């Protein structure tokens, strides 16, 4: 299914994501890695870890779409597959892989690359490659 190429909006949106990462670094001294922020809220948790900041950040994420709808009066454009077993499998892989690989698109792809971290560059090249293969298989081999 085709989607519209949106260079300006994507650049602006990316800039806003970057500004959020810089804000977190300036105030809390922490990397804006979403998989890390979410997984640290979940069990098993190490003793003495503070929960509140992660939870607040997630609440901010969750408020974004409702506020968008209030301001623009319409829902953001979105096409989600209704193949629920596929999304379930994808969810397990994303959750498991992001914890095992210490990060996702935000932590490695944005923050890590911005710090020129070798680990993050390896991770980003690896997940970009396997994601590319997954879509190739899904759309052009299996034909889903």
């Amino acid at each position, binding site marked *: 299914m085709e989607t519209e190429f949106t260079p300006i909006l994507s650049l602006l949106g990316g*800039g806003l994501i970057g500004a959020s990462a810089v804000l977190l670094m300036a105030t809390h001294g922490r990397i804006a890695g979403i998989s890390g922020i979410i997984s640290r809220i979940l069990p098993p948790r190490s003793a003495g870890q503070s929960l509140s900041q992660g939870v607040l950040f997630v609440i901010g994420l969750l408020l974004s779409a409702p506020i968008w709808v209030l301001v623009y009066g319409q829902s953001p454009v979105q096409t989600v597959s209704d193949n629920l077993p596929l999304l379930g499998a994808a969810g397990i892989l994303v959750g498991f892989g992001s914890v095992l*690989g210490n990060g996702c698109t935000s932590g490695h792809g944005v923050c890590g690359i911005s710090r020129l971290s070798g680990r993050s560059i390896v991770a980003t090249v690896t997940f970009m490659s396997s994601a590319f293969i997954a879509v190739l298989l899904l759309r052009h081999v299996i034909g889903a």
Partner: protein
Amino acid sequence: MKNLVTLIAGLMFGTGLILSGMANPAKVQNFLDLFGTWDPSLAFVMGGAIAVTMPGFWLVTRRAKPFFNDVFHLPTRTDFDKRFVSGAAIFGLGWGLGGFCPGPAVTAVPLAAQGTIVFVVTMLIGMVAAKYFVLWWDRRTWDLAGKTSQL
């Protein structure tokens, strides 16, 4: 103040994801579909984010400490082992198959598409499973190291 800033950071991040089109899994999958309905937008999202983050991090980490904390918590590890690279590869497979990574998926939850809810619930299960797996793995590595040193 500290709490408000964190909430605003989350709101900025989520709004950035929506504005950039990344909360739409079809757009992410189209970026990865070079031989099909290719949409290069995601490269602009990464470019825009890095263009702000790279100079921004450099600037703010020149201060002695962050505003609400005593130290900057910057990752210090530089090694990569099998576990780390496998994790990234597994993550990428899921990202490609679903078109969602953690940030956009959580941001899209209030839009309440069935697929999003299923993805987020299974993602949380995958995260908990991986945390237990890592604990088990580390303990096993410790045990092996202990045995070797006794020999």
